[in-house]
């Protein structure tokens, strides 16, 4: 339930370090020589010190420049703009706007019905539990020597590569009366005659199901990467000790990839709170499937309340930050030490 691939992968990279570090430590303990000591300085003419220092200081920035420029232009600047708009009554088009102070925020917090849509997020939250469990299961299975494992890896990851809008349209056909789902069920002799998107519960479960299908691949790949960075000696050792697959998972894999699981949980929660694409395309928020982001988009683009909608977006950002903070306090990100 995360729609922020780049964020996920960059965080995954940073969180993915601990197992690797554990690995080198394991080597260190076994007393491998070399490497650990100071690098041997190569003899040669020393460059002028101030230029060298400047160059060394600037190098990381030069490498990051492109990414930073893009990030600032397309993420931070619009966000800053949005924050500024949230204190105005701008309607999105008019050349005139006036500052209304915290008026929009007062408006949001005095209208409880604006927060009722978060109940819909519970469906997505429940779905993300299923999603993480399934991803963990597949990642574990496919980290062992399974037949056709590369094929299955591809199959599982593929949905994540498809554009969200396309997924919305595909699943619209999937769920429609006499559509793919009904046909497949009919093959097995099940005649449901059910309109999948027609009641609030059924529609939300169906949409959450689509989200599971879509994002499980991402979780799966993150888990698989982390699992494969666990040193194989540990499995060998545990096998010698007579551990079965479940015990290996319970005592080696699960603790080994804990940071990634925590990360997935955070992304899942923020993803469920800000679910948007799939429900927006498929139902447009009708039949009780409106999420907070859909509601915000409607405020901004249907009712021309850009100021109020910006404030709602800021509130959502703060809620997600708060939830993440609470989560990190409850489950601190411990250093992993498997040995």
């Amino acid at each position: 339930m995360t729609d922020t691939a780049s964020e996920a992968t960059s965080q995954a990279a940073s969180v993915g370090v601990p197992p690797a570090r554990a690995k080198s430590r394991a080597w260190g303990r076994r007393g491998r020589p070399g490497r650990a000591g100071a690098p041997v300085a190569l003899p040669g003419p020393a460059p002028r010190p101030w230029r060298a220092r400047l160059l060394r200081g600037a190098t990381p920035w030069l490498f990051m420049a492109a990414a930073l420029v893009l990030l600032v232009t397309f993420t931070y600047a619009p966000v800053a703009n949005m924050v500024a708009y949230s204190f105005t009554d701008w309607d999105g088009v008019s050349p005139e706007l006036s500052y209304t102070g915290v008026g929009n925020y007062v408006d949001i917090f005095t209208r409880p019905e604006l927060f009722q849509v978060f109940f819909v997020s519970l469906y997505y939250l429940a779905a993300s539990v299923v999603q993480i469990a399934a991803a963990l299961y597949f990642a574990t299975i496919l980290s062992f020597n399974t037949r056709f494992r590369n094929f299955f890896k591809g199959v599982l990851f593929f949905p994540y590569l498809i554009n969200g809008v396309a997924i919305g349209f595909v699943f619209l056909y999937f769920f429609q009366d006499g559509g793919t789902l009904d046909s497949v069920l009919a093959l097995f002799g099940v005649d449901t005659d059910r309109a999948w998107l027609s009641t609030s519960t059924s529609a939300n479960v169906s949409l959450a199901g689509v989200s599971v299908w879509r994002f499980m691949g991402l979780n799966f790949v993150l888990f698989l990467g982390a699992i494969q960075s666990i040193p194989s000696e540990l499995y060998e050792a545990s096998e010698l000790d007579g551990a079965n697959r479940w015990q290996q998972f319970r005592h080696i894999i699960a603790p080994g990839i804990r940071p990634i699981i925590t990360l997935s949980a955070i992304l899942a929660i923020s993803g469920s709170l800000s679910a948007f694409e799939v429900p927006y395309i498929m139902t447009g928020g009708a039949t009780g499937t409106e999420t907070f982001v859909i509601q915000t988009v409607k405020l901004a683009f249907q009712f021309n309340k850009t100021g109020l909608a910006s404030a709602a977006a800021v509130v959502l950002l703060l809620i997600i930050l708060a939830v993440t903070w609470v989560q990190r306090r409850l489950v601190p990100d411990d250093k992993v030490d498997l040995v």
Partner: protein
Amino acid sequence: MTTARNRFAAAGSHRTTRRLVGARSGLTAVLLAAALMAAGCTGGGASSKGEEAEAPDDPKKVSGTIKVLTHRTDLVQDGTMKEYAAEFNKTYPNVKVEFEALTDYEGEVKIRMNTDNYGDVLMIPAAIKKNDYPKFFASLGSQAERSKKYRFTDFTTVGGKVYGQSPIGVTPGFIYNKRVWQEAGVTDWPTTPAEFIADLKAIKSKTDAIPYYTNFKDMWPLSQWTGAIGSVSCDVQANDKLAASDPWAKGGELRTIDTLLYDIVHHGLVEKDPTTTNWEGSKPKLAKGEIATMWLGSWAITQMQAAAEEAGTDPDDVGFMPFPAQKDGVFCPLVAPDYNQAVSIHSQHKQAARAWIDWFTDKSGYAEDNLTLSPVKGAPLPDVLKPYEDAGVKFIELDQTNTALVNEIDNASEIGLNKPDYRQDLVDLARGARKGSLEDYFADLSKRWTDAAKTAGS
């Protein structure tokens, strides 16, 4: 083929409207800069407020290249627009006309209007407030003058000046399959909502057709129902009265209209699963008689006839009827403009742009080509509306004096008379997918509307 379609389509998912380029790194600096610049960004530079786009005296002397923004992507792609332009050049040889077709017209143009670059001629997006027209568009002349010749001047008049002109007039109504209705034994147009329901029930029991198709999933067809305002009471003030009254009170226009929709759905006279309807798919279904009725507008007739030809059925099966309500034994269908064409206030060639609008409205034949009503007063009805003439209907055009206020109340109340949301909820209510009673639902709408009306306009 989408005439009125894009107009009501929900705006795209553009989350942020402007980008602040060139800010230095460092979040604080950016925040500060953005806060300072936000006001500057929105300044549209409307210094030339109140300017006029005058009609040229001599067609040979006017020159320049004008860009026309249009929602008719289909006509630009198949070259029809180019043919119009070639025809236009016979009178105005020195004007070069370029077209830019936008699929998500409403969403894209709304955002472009934050800049100075939104073409020379464009359709006025629904999002622009009426009172803001003088900031964005050059006037086409005074209302007193223009209303002698043209319909719909009311819709774009601000301070006595007219800012846009729709090239066509449309009338909302039911598209129906004549063959299916006849099979069910109905020959006359129903004159009351109750008769209409009875007819749909007859269709359900005597034919295999779906009596009424909601197009629930595509949303904008539901918002078309608002176009029926006025045909219940036959009152040209019906729209203006929304500002000062409760539209869902007993006997209110919208109460009658929405109750009809509710009853249609509540009696199970609609498709099995409204949540997965398909607009493109509905056209051949209506043409073939699998669907009996849809509430749309006269603009849809050509599309249905085209679908009939494609499906190999008789295009003459496509019929059109007004809202089932009469005043003194006469139907009162409305005539309303489609998108109004306007001249950008930033245009460098306002005379050429004006010439295009005048020519396109008066001489292009665009209205006839689309089987719609002409915006020129006294022009004959298109052939497809012949039955209307025979039935002796009285076309009415709603007064627009209070439109700006009505729109303000509509936005403030977050009901959205021209948005599909509240009718989607109504349909959900009618088919039991949402809890509650119709009375409570109307009461809630009434409360929101009247509360918003109290604070609006101040």
